[in-house]
């Protein structure tokens, strides 16, 4: 197991190195000169060639690509992602709090998704084909087919306007979490519900279930065995749900004016604030790689077959 962890960690670190390189390289896809953008963002009225060259020099953009990359990387490792082109503030002072807010929203939503999908997944698999199963599947299917913004607007319209129950935007109290988290949960629960249900169903056909029944074990005990085996698959799936949702809150955050990563990123894209976009990609990719490693390790630790081999 120890060797496996080390191997997995080495892979993750090397992957992160390549990702950082690609992220930095993204800059050069831009049709615009970054230095020009900086000047535009600062509101300099008359952008001359000399001025661009001057800005380039002061920002170190006249250096060779690799030198620039390594400078950028070493400062990134110290959480110094440079300064925003638009506001001039350090990127981390904007990104850090936003990340925290989005993480909070994500964790609440993922908790909702886990509860909903396991609860319904198990019940529906055990009662496959009956009315409850069909209606839950139907409702979750429709919810998963809805764009997040439509679901969110409908929710606002109903809960906040019609019933006047919940705040429509911002992050003021725990009540502010309810609507955005509910939208994300309902939107994504369908996917995870399907995974749980089908893995439960495939377990139901396993021989050990038949043998357990043939030995006269009560259904409750058998269900626990089935659950134990299907959740093994589910743990790694749910583990990956955290970074996936973390990267998918953009639309919901914008609708509910959530002061998180999504709002920050969309504003940065519209304002062409490259350092923030870069930092956003890097942070989320790092989260993805990290959780990927975690989910592999968890999967290995939970599966007795793998655990002994490693």
């Amino acid at each position: 197991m120890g060797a496996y962890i080390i191997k997995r960690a080495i892979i993750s670190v090397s992957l992160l190195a390549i990702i950082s390189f690609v992220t930095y390289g993204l800059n050069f896809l831009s049709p615009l000169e970054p230095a020009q953008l900086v000047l535009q963002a600062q509101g300099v009225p008359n952008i001359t060639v000399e001025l661009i060259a001057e800005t380039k020099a002061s920002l170190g953009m006249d250096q060779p690509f690799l030198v620039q990359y390594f400078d950028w990387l070493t400062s990134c490792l110290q959480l110094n992602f440079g300064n925003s082109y638009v506001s001039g503030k350090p990127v981390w002072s904007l990104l850090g709090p936003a990340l925290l807010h989005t993480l909070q929203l994500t964790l609440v939503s993922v908790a909702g998704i886990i509860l909903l999908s396991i609860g319904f997944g198990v019940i529906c698999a055990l009662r496959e084909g009956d009315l409850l199963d069909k209606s839950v599947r139907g409702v979750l299917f429709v919810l998963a087919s809805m764009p997040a913004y439509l679901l969110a607007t409908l929710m606002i319209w109903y809960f906040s306007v019609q019933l006047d129950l919940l705040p429509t935007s911002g992050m003021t109290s725990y009540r502010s979490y309810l609507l955005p988290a509910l939208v994300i949960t309902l939107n994504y629960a369908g996917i995870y519900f399907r995974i749980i249900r089908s893995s439960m169903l495939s377990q139901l056909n396993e021989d050990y279930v038949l043998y357990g029944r043939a030995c006269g074990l009560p259904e409750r005990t058998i269900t626990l065995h089935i659950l134990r085996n299907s959740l093994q698959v589910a743990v790694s799936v749910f583990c990956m749900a955290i970074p996936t949702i973390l990267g998918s809150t953009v639309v919901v955050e914008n609708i509910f004016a959530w002061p998180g990563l999504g709002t920050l990123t969309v504003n940065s894209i519209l304002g062409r604030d490259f350092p923030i976009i870069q930092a956003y990609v890097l942070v989320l990719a790092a989260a993805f790689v990290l959780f990927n490693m975690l989910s592999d390790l968890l999967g290995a630790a939970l599966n007795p077959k793998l655990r002994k081999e490693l």
Partner: protein
Amino acid sequence: MNLIKNMWKDKLAALSLTVIAAIVLAGVFAPWLAPHDPHEVDMELRYAAPSWAYLLGNDHLGRCIMSRLIYGIRPSVLWVLAALAASVGFGGILGLIAGYFRGITDACLMRVCDVMLSFPGYVMSLAIVGILGPGLENMMIAFVLAKWAWFARMIRTSVMQYAESDYVKFSKAIGVSDTRIIMKQIVPVALPDIAVVSSSSFASMILQISGFSFLGLGVQAPHAEWGMMLNEARSVMFSRPELMLAPGLAIVIVVMAVNFLSDALQAALDPKLLRSKPQPQRQEFSRTAKLRGEEVA
């Protein structure tokens, strides 16, 4: 052809296919179908209720919602389809090469895919739009760049499985050229797999691309797009929530139809999935029953 026949038996799939075909056709022939110019502003008709001339009423600038809905099919569905085709095509060719020739080409391509896939797809497209700047073309480029690796990976897996089959080995042994094997023996059998993979991501792409337009990162005003129409309706949702109805329903219907179709496609290709509870004994039974039938015939 069997595939299509199988799917046609499934009523829901047939309905979905009809809906999608109708919507695609409506998008293609939008200039002939739309009753008005989608950009025609008429301030006197602001928020007008549905009438015979304007079937779905008018929006905040007095534009015909019906016409905007029909023109909106183009970016919301047709362009998504194009982006999908481009990324499937690109990823498919690379996947085919990697899966068939293996070796160093495969190893290199798959490492590139590993890196691409370690970015969450949505974040990747967001980043590319961010760097290139908002707009429909840039959004399409972003989606193709973000999605191809996934298709390459899936198609490679599928191709590999066929490339190792005995009939391909036999063809290689008797000296059939690689291009011929790929075109005649690999592509036809891998095509259904490709169809399933791409149809299942079509729905999520429609949702994501309209989401981008909703945020103002995609199609730019005054062009009509469903996500953007919803965004425009959102500002008056307190006074006129009915404006959200038409574009919202349009998206939900398309996405649901695509999802049903993709499920049906999967089921038609893998009949095991039709029955969620396959019992080994029963399958054996039907298999021998089929064999016996053939003997009689």
